[in-house]
């Protein structure tokens, strides 16, 4: 596909994202008329607190939630793309290989033990705890699943190991929730099924910063990841230092996914579906996929969050239920595809 057509497709994806985000800001437990969205946003931009209750709901709950959703969706989309490129397999994603559950465990451990051990409540201590958990669980899955000796884990081993490690960390979270006093840690549904209801401007800033940096950094390695798609030996022959590339890309991936998970819990399948749909549209060139999966991941998660908020309103579904309903059929159909290599 030619460069103008790629640019056109990216532009269309960005427009789609903006429309979805606008819809997700407008509709919810209460619907905001356009003029109120405008006046509240203007008030925030001018540095004032909106004077009405609705205005404050809009600027302190709805708006940060929608923006957090954009960044979390982007991080899961990019995370899925990076993992699939790294392990040369289209059915790998952060939720399946333990990154998300490990990160959630790290974060809930922080909530439970942080107060007991008097860990400093620095803005970065929660994301750091989540990253540590994500590193441990991801490393466990790949170390335990590697049986071939050529660095390419068999997908059956990978999925089964992921299943076991996920179960381990989720039961760890269950235990921590059981003994916890902190209300956020107590909510096991929060960690297992994911929700964006805890969004604050602070979490927006942290997740936004890490996701943006991580996406830009991974773009630097897009060409090398392309070379990796034809094999580790081949990539080496093409001048790629494969061991170094794996370490860097896995680090970026764990950082962006773990930080997002720390604030939203485990949201599965977004990282699986997003690169899959984009590949059907335009093929597997990572230079395109990384940017597009950030944009499209943001779109899909915003849509999922909108559905989670309006389906049973005024009550709210955990977003993980929505993403699973869409994601499981895609995952199963991918598993059954013949021309993917297992």
């Amino acid at each position, binding site marked *: 596909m030619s460069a103008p057509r790629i640019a056109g497709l990216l532009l269309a994806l960005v427009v789609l994202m903006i429309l979805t985000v606008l819809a997700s800001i407008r509709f919810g437990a209460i619907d905001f008329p356009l003029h109120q969205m405008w006046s509240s946003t203007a008030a925030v931009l001018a540095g004032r607190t909106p004077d009405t209750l609705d205005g404050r709901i809009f600027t302190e709950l709805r708006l940060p939630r929608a923006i957090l959703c954009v960044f979390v969706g982007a991080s899961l989309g990019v995370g899925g793309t990076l993992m699939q490129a790294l392990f040369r397999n289209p059915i790998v994603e952060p939720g399946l290989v333990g990154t998300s559950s490990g990160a959630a465990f790290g974060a809930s451990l922080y909530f439970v033990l942080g107060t007991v051990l008097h860990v400093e409540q620095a803005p970065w201590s929660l994301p750091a705890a989540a990253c540590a958990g994500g590193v441990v669980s991801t490393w466990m899955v790949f170390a335990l699943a590697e049986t071939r000796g050529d660095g390419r884990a068999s997908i059956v081993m990978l999925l089964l190991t992921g299943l076991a490690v996920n179960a381990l960390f989720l039961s760890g979270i269950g235990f921590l929730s059981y003994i916890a006093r902190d209300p956020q840690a107590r909510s096991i549904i929060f960690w297992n099924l994911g929700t964006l209801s805890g969004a604050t401007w602070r979490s927006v800033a942290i997740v936004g910063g890490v996701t943006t940096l991580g996406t830009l950094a991974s773009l630097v390695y897009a060409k090398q990841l392309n070379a990796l798609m034809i094999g580790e030996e*081949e990539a080496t022959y093409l001048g790629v*230092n494969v061991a170094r590339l794996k370490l860097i890309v896995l680090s970026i991936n764990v950082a962006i996914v773990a930080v997002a998970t720390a604030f939203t819990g485990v949201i599965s399948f977004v990282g699986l579906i997003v690169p899959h749909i984009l590949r059907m549209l335009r*093929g597997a060139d990572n230079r395109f996929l990384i940017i597009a999966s950030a944009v499209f991941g943001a779109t899909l998660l915003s849509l999922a969050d909108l559905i989670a908020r309006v389906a049973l309103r005024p009550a709210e579904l955990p977003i993980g239920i929505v993403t699973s309903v869409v994601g499981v059929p895609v995952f199963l159909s991918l598993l059954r595809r013949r*021309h993917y290599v297992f």
Partner: protein
Amino acid sequence: MVEAQNVGFRAGHRDLISGISARFAPGQLHLIIGANGAGKSTLVKVLSRLLRPAAGLVQYDGRDVSHATERDLARRRAVLSQAIEVAFPLSVREVVMMGRYPHFGTRPAQHDLDIVDEVMRFFDVSDMAERSYPTLSGGEKQRVNFARVLGQVWQPVAGQHRILFLDEPLTFLDIRHQIEFMKKVRETLKSGDMVIVGVVHDLNLAARFADRLLLLNQGRVLADGTGAEVLAPAHIRTAFGIEPVVTTAPGGGMHLIFD
């Protein structure tokens, strides 16, 4: 010139190759032959520096390769491996373009695009440029990959020989494409500044196309020389455990028949 000096490689406690010394000169087609497990692929991987030898030294143009960066190596040395599978829908053009990856930063320059077009024409894969690589047949994939590795070392490098390794390139090719492939390899040699080292199984194809043969047996060199020298019945018997009948091909070259 590619030179191996007393090279050995171990996997676990087993010597896959040991004590191998050989020189591979530019402008000549060097083919490595031997039975399964004789160490042919291991030798190619050590020569191409995918594997670091446990003993000995590999030199390109008189310089030890062990300290070169992957990227510097990739600009002058290409390797065609066996059976490359891709799980993703990459276009044929992008796979061929990968051969140019060591030569450009983020975006290919015009001459990279030109080289890709040229090698795709040379290997008769231009028609498939926009097709998805995983949908190709085994033979088509092989041709696409040969276009890719040749594109990688398409331009002469000042003061250095270009080096091309072919690890069982004829797998998956039908007989017509095998012959065409070998002819294209010979055509590539005419530039004079390229060292080509290949591994093949078919002894008659090796006899017909190679300038020099290297016969491996149990990880060691059994014979090194011209086709007539290396393919002596005694060598074949030792290396393959089978008795050949040597006849003359219609073109005048030697031809082996096995009972």
